[in-house]
Protein backbone atom coordinates (compact mmCIF):
# COMPACT_ATOMS: atom_id res chain seq x y z
CA UNK A 1 0.00 0.00 0.00
CA UNK A 2 1.68 3.23 -1.09
CA UNK A 3 0.73 6.72 -0.17
CA UNK A 4 2.18 9.97 -1.46
CA UNK A 5 2.82 12.89 0.84
CA UNK A 6 3.79 16.16 -0.94
CA UNK A 7 7.14 17.13 0.57
CA UNK A 8 7.02 20.84 -0.07
CA UNK A 9 3.53 21.34 1.28
CA UNK A 10 3.22 22.16 4.97
CA UNK A 11 -0.43 21.16 5.06
CA UNK A 12 0.36 17.73 3.69
CA UNK A 13 -2.31 15.99 5.65
CA UNK A 14 -4.98 18.58 5.12
CA UNK A 15 -5.41 18.63 1.35
CA UNK A 16 -7.94 16.48 -0.47
CA UNK A 17 -5.34 14.24 -2.11
CA UNK A 18 -3.91 13.16 1.21
CA UNK A 19 -7.41 12.42 2.47
CA UNK A 20 -7.96 9.72 -0.11
CA UNK A 21 -4.79 8.04 1.16
CA UNK A 22 -5.74 7.57 4.78
CA UNK A 23 -8.57 6.26 6.93
CA UNK A 24 -11.02 8.96 7.92
CA UNK A 25 -14.10 7.05 9.01
CA UNK A 26 -15.00 3.42 9.62
CA UNK A 27 -17.62 1.92 7.27
CA UNK A 28 -18.48 -1.67 8.15
CA UNK A 29 -18.09 -2.08 11.89
CA UNK A 30 -18.33 -4.83 14.48
CA UNK A 31 -19.51 -4.05 17.99
CA UNK A 32 -18.15 -5.15 21.36
CA UNK A 33 -15.92 -8.06 22.31
CA UNK A 34 -15.86 -9.36 25.90
CA UNK A 35 -13.09 -11.64 27.16
CA UNK A 36 -12.06 -13.14 30.52
CA UNK A 37 -9.29 -15.30 31.89
CA UNK A 38 -10.54 -18.44 33.59
CA UNK A 39 -9.08 -21.49 35.26
CA UNK A 40 -7.80 -23.26 32.13
CA UNK A 41 -7.15 -20.32 29.83
CA UNK A 42 -9.13 -17.55 28.16
CA UNK A 43 -12.77 -17.23 27.06
CA UNK A 44 -13.88 -14.66 24.49
CA UNK A 45 -17.35 -13.78 23.24
CA UNK A 46 -18.50 -11.73 20.28
CA UNK A 47 -21.63 -11.39 18.21
CA UNK A 48 -21.62 -11.95 14.48
CA UNK A 49 -22.94 -8.65 13.20
CA UNK A 50 -21.33 -6.18 10.77
CA UNK A 51 -23.12 -2.83 10.67
CA UNK A 52 -22.90 -0.43 7.74
CA UNK A 53 -23.68 2.80 9.57
CA UNK A 54 -27.16 2.27 10.96
CA UNK A 55 -27.97 -0.72 8.73
CA UNK A 56 -27.33 -4.26 9.92
CA UNK A 57 -25.63 -5.36 6.72
CA UNK A 58 -23.84 -8.59 7.55
CA UNK A 59 -24.98 -11.19 10.05
CA UNK A 60 -22.33 -13.85 9.62
CA UNK A 61 -19.03 -12.18 10.37
CA UNK A 62 -16.60 -14.14 12.52
CA UNK A 63 -14.79 -11.51 14.50
CA UNK A 64 -12.56 -13.96 16.36
CA UNK A 65 -9.73 -15.88 14.72
CA UNK A 66 -7.01 -18.21 15.94
CA UNK A 67 -3.46 -16.96 15.43
CA UNK A 68 -0.76 -19.61 15.34
CA UNK A 69 -1.05 -22.32 17.95
CA UNK A 70 -1.31 -20.23 21.09
CA UNK A 71 -3.37 -17.12 20.46
CA UNK A 72 -6.88 -15.92 19.69
CA UNK A 73 -7.56 -12.48 18.21
CA UNK A 74 -10.91 -10.73 18.50
CA UNK A 75 -11.60 -7.38 16.84
CA UNK A 76 -14.22 -4.69 16.97
CA UNK A 77 -14.35 -1.71 14.62
CA UNK A 78 -13.73 -1.62 10.88
CA UNK A 79 -13.98 -5.15 9.43
CA UNK A 80 -11.72 -4.50 6.42
CA UNK A 81 -8.93 -3.32 8.73
CA UNK A 82 -9.40 -6.49 10.78
CA UNK A 83 -8.94 -8.56 7.63
CA UNK A 84 -5.79 -6.60 6.80
CA UNK A 85 -4.43 -7.31 10.29
CA UNK A 86 -5.14 -11.02 9.76
CA UNK A 87 -3.06 -10.86 6.57
CA UNK A 88 -0.17 -9.22 8.47
CA UNK A 89 -0.39 -11.87 11.18
CA UNK A 90 -0.53 -14.64 8.57
CA UNK A 91 2.77 -13.41 7.18
CA UNK A 92 4.20 -13.18 10.69
CA UNK A 93 3.20 -16.75 11.59
CA UNK A 94 4.43 -18.04 8.22
CA UNK A 95 7.85 -16.51 8.71
CA UNK A 96 7.94 -17.90 12.22
CA UNK A 97 7.13 -21.39 10.95
CA UNK A 98 9.80 -21.19 8.28
CA UNK A 99 12.48 -21.05 10.98
CA UNK A 100 11.32 -24.57 11.82
CA UNK A 101 13.03 -24.44 15.19
CA UNK A 102 10.31 -25.83 17.43
CA UNK A 103 9.50 -22.36 18.81
CA UNK A 104 6.21 -20.71 18.10
CA UNK A 105 4.89 -17.20 18.67
CA UNK A 106 3.15 -16.82 21.99
CA UNK A 107 0.32 -14.41 22.81
CA UNK A 108 2.68 -11.89 24.42
CA UNK A 109 4.73 -11.63 21.24
CA UNK A 110 1.68 -11.29 19.01
CA UNK A 111 0.29 -8.61 21.33
CA UNK A 112 3.54 -6.69 21.18
CA UNK A 113 3.61 -6.92 17.37
CA UNK A 114 0.04 -5.64 17.12
CA UNK A 115 0.78 -2.77 19.53
CA UNK A 116 3.69 -1.64 17.38
CA UNK A 117 1.64 -1.86 14.17
CA UNK A 118 -1.31 0.08 15.62
CA UNK A 119 0.81 2.77 17.23
CA UNK A 120 2.92 3.36 14.15
CA UNK A 121 -0.14 3.62 11.92
CA UNK A 122 -1.65 6.14 14.35
CA UNK A 123 1.54 8.22 14.24
CA UNK A 124 1.16 8.48 10.46
CA UNK A 125 -2.47 9.64 10.89
CA UNK A 126 -3.63 6.55 9.03
CA UNK A 127 -4.98 4.24 11.75
CA UNK A 128 -6.34 0.74 11.52
CA UNK A 129 -9.77 1.47 12.94
CA UNK A 130 -10.00 -1.43 15.38
CA UNK A 131 -9.85 -2.29 19.03
CA UNK A 132 -8.20 -5.69 19.27
CA UNK A 133 -8.39 -8.28 22.03
CA UNK A 134 -5.58 -10.79 22.18
CA UNK A 135 -5.88 -13.87 24.39
CA UNK A 136 -3.78 -16.98 24.62
CA UNK A 137 -2.09 -19.68 26.66
CA UNK A 138 1.55 -20.69 26.37
CA UNK A 139 3.50 -22.95 28.72
CA UNK A 140 0.58 -22.98 31.15
CA UNK A 141 0.42 -19.20 31.46
CA UNK A 142 -2.75 -17.42 30.35
CA UNK A 143 -2.47 -14.01 28.74
CA UNK A 144 -5.18 -11.49 27.90
CA UNK A 145 -4.50 -8.06 26.46
CA UNK A 146 -6.04 -5.28 24.41
CA UNK A 147 -4.79 -2.74 21.81
CA UNK A 148 -6.83 0.22 20.66
CA UNK A 149 -6.67 2.11 17.36
CA UNK A 150 -4.49 4.81 18.88
CA UNK A 151 -2.02 2.28 20.26
CA UNK A 152 -3.15 2.16 23.91
CA UNK A 153 -2.22 -1.32 25.04
CA UNK A 154 -2.53 -3.15 28.32
CA UNK A 155 -3.29 -6.56 29.79
CA UNK A 156 -5.84 -7.47 32.41
CA UNK A 157 -7.89 -10.36 33.79
CA UNK A 158 -10.95 -9.22 31.85
CA UNK A 159 -11.28 -6.84 28.92
CA UNK A 160 -14.07 -5.47 26.79
CA UNK A 161 -14.22 -3.19 23.76
CA UNK A 162 -16.64 -0.46 22.73
CA UNK A 163 -19.92 -0.53 24.59
CA UNK A 164 -18.68 -3.53 26.53
CA UNK A 165 -16.45 -1.15 28.48
CA UNK A 166 -19.45 0.64 29.92
CA UNK A 167 -21.91 -2.23 30.25
CA UNK A 168 -19.83 -5.40 30.74
CA UNK A 169 -16.77 -4.20 32.71
CA UNK A 170 -18.82 -3.22 35.82
CA UNK A 171 -20.30 -6.73 35.95
CA UNK A 172 -16.89 -8.34 35.41
CA UNK A 173 -15.23 -6.17 38.05
CA UNK A 174 -17.81 -7.38 40.54
CA UNK A 175 -18.09 -11.04 39.64
CA UNK A 176 -14.83 -12.22 38.09
CA UNK A 177 -12.68 -14.68 40.04
CA UNK A 178 -9.40 -16.32 39.11
CA UNK A 179 -10.72 -19.86 39.55
CA UNK A 180 -13.80 -19.76 37.30
CA UNK A 181 -14.64 -23.09 35.72
CA UNK A 182 -15.55 -23.30 32.03
CA UNK A 183 -19.33 -23.37 32.72
CA UNK A 184 -19.13 -20.46 35.18
CA UNK A 185 -17.03 -18.47 32.72
CA UNK A 186 -19.49 -19.05 29.88
CA UNK A 187 -22.39 -18.07 32.16
CA UNK A 188 -20.60 -14.86 33.14
CA UNK A 189 -19.88 -13.98 29.49
CA UNK A 190 -23.49 -14.74 28.52
CA UNK A 191 -24.68 -12.42 31.31
CA UNK A 192 -22.55 -9.62 29.84
CA UNK A 193 -23.61 -10.37 26.25
CA UNK A 194 -27.27 -10.35 27.26
CA UNK A 195 -26.98 -6.87 28.79
CA UNK A 196 -25.20 -5.74 25.61
CA UNK A 197 -27.97 -7.24 23.51
CA UNK A 198 -30.58 -5.26 25.46
CA UNK A 199 -28.73 -1.96 25.51
CA UNK A 200 -26.38 -1.75 22.47
CA UNK A 201 -28.23 -0.85 19.31
CA UNK A 202 -25.67 -2.50 17.04
CA UNK A 203 -25.69 -5.85 18.83
CA UNK A 204 -27.48 -8.87 17.35
CA UNK A 205 -28.68 -12.04 18.99
CA UNK A 206 -26.24 -14.38 17.29
CA UNK A 207 -23.04 -14.93 19.18
CA UNK A 208 -20.01 -17.15 19.34
CA UNK A 209 -17.88 -18.03 22.33
CA UNK A 210 -14.24 -19.00 21.79
CA UNK A 211 -12.09 -20.91 24.23
CA UNK A 212 -8.33 -21.07 24.24
CA UNK A 213 -6.41 -23.45 26.48
CA UNK A 214 -3.06 -25.19 26.42
CA UNK A 215 -4.62 -27.70 23.98
CA UNK A 216 -5.59 -25.10 21.41
CA UNK A 217 -8.42 -22.90 20.16
CA UNK A 218 -12.07 -23.86 19.76
CA UNK A 219 -14.69 -21.45 18.43
CA UNK A 220 -18.25 -22.48 19.17
CA UNK A 221 -21.08 -22.68 16.67
CA UNK A 222 -23.25 -19.54 16.53
CA UNK A 223 -26.19 -19.55 18.93
CA UNK A 224 -28.62 -17.06 20.45
CA UNK A 225 -29.48 -15.96 23.98
CA UNK A 226 -32.86 -16.09 25.66
CA UNK A 227 -34.33 -12.67 26.43
CA UNK A 228 -37.13 -11.66 28.77
CA UNK A 229 -39.76 -9.10 27.82
CA UNK A 230 -42.67 -10.04 30.09
CA UNK A 231 -42.45 -7.32 32.75
CA UNK A 232 -45.95 -6.28 33.74
CA UNK A 233 -44.92 -2.63 33.43
CA UNK A 234 -44.26 -3.22 29.73
CA UNK A 235 -47.74 -4.64 29.16
CA UNK A 236 -49.55 -1.48 30.09
CA UNK A 237 -47.17 1.41 30.66
CA UNK A 238 -49.91 4.00 30.91
CA UNK A 239 -51.97 2.24 33.57
CA UNK A 240 -53.32 4.89 35.90
CA UNK A 241 -52.78 7.61 33.29
CA UNK A 242 -54.91 6.78 30.26
CA UNK A 243 -53.77 8.75 27.24
CA UNK A 244 -50.37 9.84 28.60
CA UNK A 245 -47.10 8.58 27.17
Amino acid at each position, binding site marked *: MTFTIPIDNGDALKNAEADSQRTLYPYVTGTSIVAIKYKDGVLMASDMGGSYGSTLRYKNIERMQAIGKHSLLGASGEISDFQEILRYLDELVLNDNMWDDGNSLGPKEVHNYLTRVMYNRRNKFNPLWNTLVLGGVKNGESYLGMVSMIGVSFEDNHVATG*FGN*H*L*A*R*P*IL*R*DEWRADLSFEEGVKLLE*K*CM*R*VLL*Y*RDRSAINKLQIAKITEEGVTVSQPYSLKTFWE*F*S*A*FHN*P*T*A*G*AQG*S*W
Partner: protein
Amino acid sequence: MSQSAVEVPPKGGFSFDLCKRNDMLIQKGLKAPSFLKTGTTIVGLIFKDGVILGADTRATEGPIVADKNCEKIHYMAPNIYCCGAGTAADTEAVTDMVSSQLRLHRYQTGRDSRVITALTLLKKHLFSYQGQVSAALVLGGVDITGPHLHTIYPHGSTDTLPFATMGSGSLAAMSVFEAKYKEGLTREEGVKLVAEAICSGIFNDLGSGSNVDICVITKEGKEYLRNYMEPNPRTYVSSKGYSFTKKTEVLLTKITPLMERVQITEVGEDMEE
Protein backbone atom coordinates in the same frame (compact mmCIF):
# COMPACT_ATOMS: atom_id res chain seq x y z
CA MET B 1 -51.08 56.28 9.24
CA SER B 2 -49.02 56.51 12.46
CA GLN B 3 -45.22 56.56 12.18
CA SER B 4 -44.50 54.49 15.28
CA ALA B 5 -44.78 50.71 15.10
CA VAL B 6 -47.75 49.04 16.72
CA GLU B 7 -46.97 47.56 20.12
CA VAL B 8 -47.17 43.78 19.74
CA PRO B 9 -47.63 41.84 23.01
CA PRO B 10 -44.70 39.46 23.61
CA LYS B 11 -45.34 35.92 22.35
CA GLY B 12 -45.01 33.09 24.82
CA GLY B 13 -42.31 30.43 24.80
CA PHE B 14 -38.51 30.55 25.01
CA SER B 15 -36.72 33.53 23.49
CA PHE B 16 -33.67 32.35 21.58
CA ASP B 17 -32.16 35.83 21.04
CA LEU B 18 -29.29 35.38 23.44
CA CYS B 19 -28.33 32.01 21.94
CA LYS B 20 -27.13 33.81 18.81
CA ARG B 21 -25.10 36.19 20.94
CA ASN B 22 -23.57 33.28 22.88
CA ASP B 23 -22.55 31.54 19.66
CA MET B 24 -20.93 34.74 18.42
CA LEU B 25 -19.01 35.17 21.66
CA ILE B 26 -17.76 31.57 21.59
CA GLN B 27 -16.59 32.08 18.01
CA LYS B 28 -14.71 35.18 19.11
CA GLY B 29 -12.90 33.02 21.65
CA LEU B 30 -14.79 33.57 24.91
CA LYS B 31 -14.77 30.50 27.15
CA ALA B 32 -18.26 29.72 28.39
CA PRO B 33 -18.42 29.67 32.22
CA SER B 34 -18.49 26.12 33.52
CA PHE B 35 -21.46 25.16 35.59
CA LEU B 36 -21.95 22.77 38.43
CA LYS B 37 -23.07 19.44 36.98
CA THR B 38 -24.12 16.52 39.06
CA GLY B 39 -22.42 13.93 36.71
CA THR B 40 -24.30 11.26 38.45
CA THR B 41 -25.75 7.85 38.93
CA ILE B 42 -29.46 7.91 39.76
CA VAL B 43 -31.72 4.86 39.69
CA GLY B 44 -35.25 3.81 40.53
CA LEU B 45 -37.04 0.51 40.64
CA ILE B 46 -40.52 -0.79 41.36
CA PHE B 47 -40.73 -3.56 43.94
CA LYS B 48 -43.64 -5.48 45.42
CA ASP B 49 -45.05 -2.73 47.65
CA GLY B 50 -43.85 0.47 46.00
CA VAL B 51 -40.86 2.34 44.60
CA ILE B 52 -37.21 2.59 45.65
CA LEU B 53 -35.07 5.52 44.45
CA GLY B 54 -31.28 5.65 44.75
CA ALA B 55 -28.57 8.22 44.03
CA ASP B 56 -24.87 8.85 44.57
CA THR B 57 -23.69 12.05 46.31
CA ARG B 58 -20.94 13.60 44.17
CA ALA B 59 -21.36 17.00 42.48
CA THR B 60 -18.66 17.89 39.92
CA GLU B 61 -17.54 21.15 38.36
CA GLY B 62 -15.55 19.98 35.36
CA PRO B 63 -12.75 17.78 36.75
CA ILE B 64 -13.16 18.92 40.36
CA VAL B 65 -15.47 17.43 42.97
CA ALA B 66 -17.38 20.48 44.18
CA ASP B 67 -19.58 18.77 46.77
CA LYS B 68 -18.64 15.37 48.26
CA ASN B 69 -21.99 14.75 49.88
CA CYS B 70 -24.81 16.55 48.10
CA GLU B 71 -28.47 15.48 48.11
CA LYS B 72 -29.81 14.38 44.76
CA ILE B 73 -33.13 12.92 45.90
CA HIS B 74 -35.55 15.86 45.98
CA TYR B 75 -38.88 16.11 47.77
CA MET B 76 -41.88 16.64 45.52
CA ALA B 77 -44.78 15.55 47.74
CA PRO B 78 -45.13 13.37 50.85
CA ASN B 79 -45.59 10.39 48.53
CA ILE B 80 -43.44 11.45 45.56
CA TYR B 81 -39.66 11.92 45.32
CA CYS B 82 -37.49 12.84 42.35
CA CYS B 83 -33.80 12.14 41.65
CA GLY B 84 -32.02 14.70 39.46
CA ALA B 85 -29.02 14.50 37.13
CA GLY B 86 -27.52 17.18 34.90
CA THR B 87 -26.99 20.79 35.91
CA ALA B 88 -27.49 21.01 39.69
CA ALA B 89 -29.18 24.43 39.60
CA ASP B 90 -31.65 23.22 36.98
CA THR B 91 -32.63 20.06 38.85
CA GLU B 92 -33.04 21.98 42.14
CA ALA B 93 -35.05 24.80 40.61
CA VAL B 94 -37.34 22.65 38.52
CA THR B 95 -38.12 20.17 41.30
CA ASP B 96 -38.71 22.98 43.82
CA MET B 97 -41.02 24.76 41.40
CA VAL B 98 -43.11 21.69 40.64
CA SER B 99 -43.14 20.74 44.33
CA SER B 100 -44.78 24.06 45.24
CA GLN B 101 -47.19 23.77 42.31
CA LEU B 102 -48.19 20.32 43.60
CA ARG B 103 -48.73 21.70 47.10
CA LEU B 104 -51.02 24.46 45.87
CA HIS B 105 -52.87 21.86 43.81
CA ARG B 106 -53.28 19.67 46.92
CA TYR B 107 -54.81 22.60 48.82
CA GLN B 108 -57.17 23.27 45.97
CA THR B 109 -58.33 19.70 45.35
CA GLY B 110 -58.08 18.36 48.90
CA ARG B 111 -56.51 15.14 47.59
CA ASP B 112 -53.06 13.56 47.63
CA SER B 113 -50.87 14.34 44.62
CA ARG B 114 -50.53 11.82 41.84
CA VAL B 115 -47.24 10.94 40.18
CA ILE B 116 -48.51 11.67 36.69
CA THR B 117 -49.43 15.20 37.82
CA ALA B 118 -45.79 15.81 38.75
CA LEU B 119 -44.76 14.12 35.51
CA THR B 120 -46.95 16.33 33.32
CA LEU B 121 -45.92 19.56 35.10
CA LEU B 122 -42.23 18.69 34.74
CA LYS B 123 -42.42 17.62 31.09
CA LYS B 124 -44.41 20.66 30.05
CA HIS B 125 -41.85 22.96 31.64
CA LEU B 126 -38.81 21.16 30.21
CA PHE B 127 -40.28 20.91 26.69
CA SER B 128 -41.10 24.60 26.56
CA TYR B 129 -37.39 25.31 27.21
CA GLN B 130 -36.35 23.04 24.33
CA GLY B 131 -33.64 21.22 26.28
CA GLN B 132 -31.93 24.38 27.56
CA VAL B 133 -32.95 23.41 31.12
CA SER B 134 -30.50 20.55 31.53
CA ALA B 135 -32.37 18.36 34.00
CA ALA B 136 -32.63 14.58 33.60
CA LEU B 137 -34.92 13.18 36.28
CA VAL B 138 -36.05 9.87 37.74
CA LEU B 139 -39.48 10.47 39.27
CA GLY B 140 -41.04 7.87 41.54
CA GLY B 141 -43.91 7.68 43.98
CA VAL B 142 -46.97 5.81 45.21
CA ASP B 143 -50.41 7.31 44.83
CA ILE B 144 -53.99 6.10 44.91
CA THR B 145 -53.52 4.33 41.55
CA GLY B 146 -50.44 2.41 42.68
CA PRO B 147 -46.64 2.73 42.43
CA HIS B 148 -45.19 4.59 39.41
CA LEU B 149 -41.69 5.17 38.10
CA HIS B 150 -40.83 7.56 35.26
CA THR B 151 -37.75 9.01 33.61
CA ILE B 152 -37.80 12.55 32.21
CA TYR B 153 -35.23 13.77 29.69
CA PRO B 154 -34.05 17.40 29.33
CA HIS B 155 -36.00 17.85 26.10
CA GLY B 156 -39.25 16.80 27.75
CA SER B 157 -39.78 13.18 26.71
CA THR B 158 -40.74 10.64 29.36
CA ASP B 159 -40.70 6.88 29.83
CA THR B 160 -42.65 4.67 32.19
CA LEU B 161 -40.48 1.80 33.35
CA PRO B 162 -40.16 -0.97 35.95
CA PHE B 163 -36.51 0.05 36.51
CA ALA B 164 -34.63 3.11 35.32
CA THR B 165 -31.20 4.73 35.47
CA MET B 166 -30.00 8.21 34.44
CA GLY B 167 -26.79 10.23 34.57
CA SER B 168 -23.21 9.54 33.49
CA GLY B 169 -23.13 6.33 35.53
CA SER B 170 -26.40 5.10 34.02
CA LEU B 171 -24.76 2.41 31.88
CA ALA B 172 -22.86 0.91 34.80
CA ALA B 173 -26.03 0.90 36.92
CA MET B 174 -28.19 -0.37 34.06
CA SER B 175 -25.89 -3.35 33.51
CA VAL B 176 -26.56 -4.38 37.14
CA PHE B 177 -30.33 -3.93 36.71
CA GLU B 178 -30.52 -5.75 33.37
CA ALA B 179 -28.59 -8.66 34.83
CA LYS B 180 -30.40 -8.94 38.17
CA TYR B 181 -33.86 -7.31 38.16
CA LYS B 182 -36.91 -9.51 38.70
CA GLU B 183 -40.53 -8.62 39.32
CA GLY B 184 -41.99 -8.83 42.81
CA LEU B 185 -38.81 -8.06 44.75
CA THR B 186 -39.15 -7.68 48.52
CA ARG B 187 -38.05 -4.50 50.27
CA GLU B 188 -34.69 -5.97 51.37
CA GLU B 189 -33.91 -7.37 47.90
CA GLY B 190 -34.92 -4.09 46.27
CA VAL B 191 -32.78 -1.93 48.54
CA LYS B 192 -29.84 -4.32 48.06
CA LEU B 193 -30.19 -4.18 44.26
CA VAL B 194 -30.46 -0.37 44.22
CA ALA B 195 -27.39 -0.05 46.47
CA GLU B 196 -25.52 -2.45 44.18
CA ALA B 197 -26.45 -0.44 41.09
CA ILE B 198 -25.38 2.86 42.67
CA CYS B 199 -22.10 1.29 43.86
CA SER B 200 -21.50 0.07 40.31
CA GLY B 201 -21.87 3.69 39.18
CA ILE B 202 -19.70 5.02 42.02
CA PHE B 203 -16.82 2.66 41.32
CA ASN B 204 -16.97 2.47 37.52
CA ASP B 205 -17.90 6.05 36.58
CA LEU B 206 -15.67 9.02 37.28
CA GLY B 207 -18.59 11.44 37.50
CA SER B 208 -20.15 9.58 40.42
CA GLY B 209 -18.75 8.87 43.87
CA SER B 210 -18.91 9.13 47.63
CA ASN B 211 -22.03 7.73 49.30
CA VAL B 212 -25.32 6.03 48.45
CA ASP B 213 -28.67 7.72 49.25
CA ILE B 214 -31.85 5.66 49.17
CA CYS B 215 -35.53 6.54 49.43
CA VAL B 216 -38.19 3.85 49.84
CA ILE B 217 -41.79 4.91 49.10
CA THR B 218 -44.77 2.69 49.84
CA LYS B 219 -48.47 3.19 50.29
CA GLU B 220 -47.87 3.58 54.05
CA GLY B 221 -45.33 6.34 53.70
CA LYS B 222 -41.74 7.09 52.83
CA GLU B 223 -38.35 6.29 54.33
CA TYR B 224 -35.53 8.60 53.35
CA LEU B 225 -32.24 6.82 54.06
CA ARG B 226 -29.64 9.55 53.73
CA ASN B 227 -26.12 8.11 53.37
CA TYR B 228 -27.49 4.54 53.53
CA MET B 229 -24.04 3.28 52.55
CA GLU B 230 -20.68 4.98 52.87
CA PRO B 231 -18.29 2.86 50.79
CA ASN B 232 -15.64 5.60 50.54
CA PRO B 233 -14.77 6.51 54.11
CA ARG B 234 -11.82 8.70 54.95
CA THR B 235 -9.56 6.07 56.38
CA TYR B 236 -6.40 7.96 57.21
CA VAL B 237 -6.54 10.44 60.03
CA SER B 238 -3.26 11.54 61.53
CA SER B 239 -3.00 10.12 65.05
CA LYS B 240 -0.85 12.99 66.21
CA GLY B 241 -3.67 15.44 65.65
CA TYR B 242 -3.02 19.01 64.64
CA SER B 243 -1.25 21.52 66.85
CA PHE B 244 -1.52 25.21 66.07
CA THR B 245 1.23 27.56 67.23
CA LYS B 246 0.15 30.01 69.92
CA LYS B 247 -0.54 33.43 68.45
CA THR B 248 -2.24 35.95 70.75
CA GLU B 249 -2.31 35.57 74.51
CA VAL B 250 -5.69 35.35 76.23
CA LEU B 251 -5.84 38.06 78.92
CA LEU B 252 -9.35 37.82 80.25
CA THR B 253 -12.32 35.45 79.74
CA LYS B 254 -15.69 37.03 80.57
CA ILE B 255 -18.94 35.66 79.17
CA THR B 256 -22.01 37.94 78.96
CA PRO B 257 -25.14 36.13 77.69
CA LEU B 258 -26.58 38.26 74.90
CA MET B 259 -30.17 37.58 76.00
CA GLU B 260 -29.72 40.01 78.94
CA ARG B 261 -28.75 42.79 76.59
CA VAL B 262 -31.49 42.24 74.03
CA GLN B 263 -35.15 43.14 74.34
CA ILE B 264 -37.57 40.74 72.67
CA THR B 265 -40.94 42.22 71.75
CA GLU B 266 -43.77 39.85 70.81
CA VAL B 267 -45.33 41.36 67.70
CA GLY B 268 -47.60 39.49 65.34
CA GLU B 269 -47.67 35.75 64.70
CA ASP B 270 -44.71 33.48 64.13
CA MET B 271 -44.16 32.51 60.52
CA GLU B 272 -45.11 28.94 59.91
CA GLU B 273 -42.25 26.70 58.82
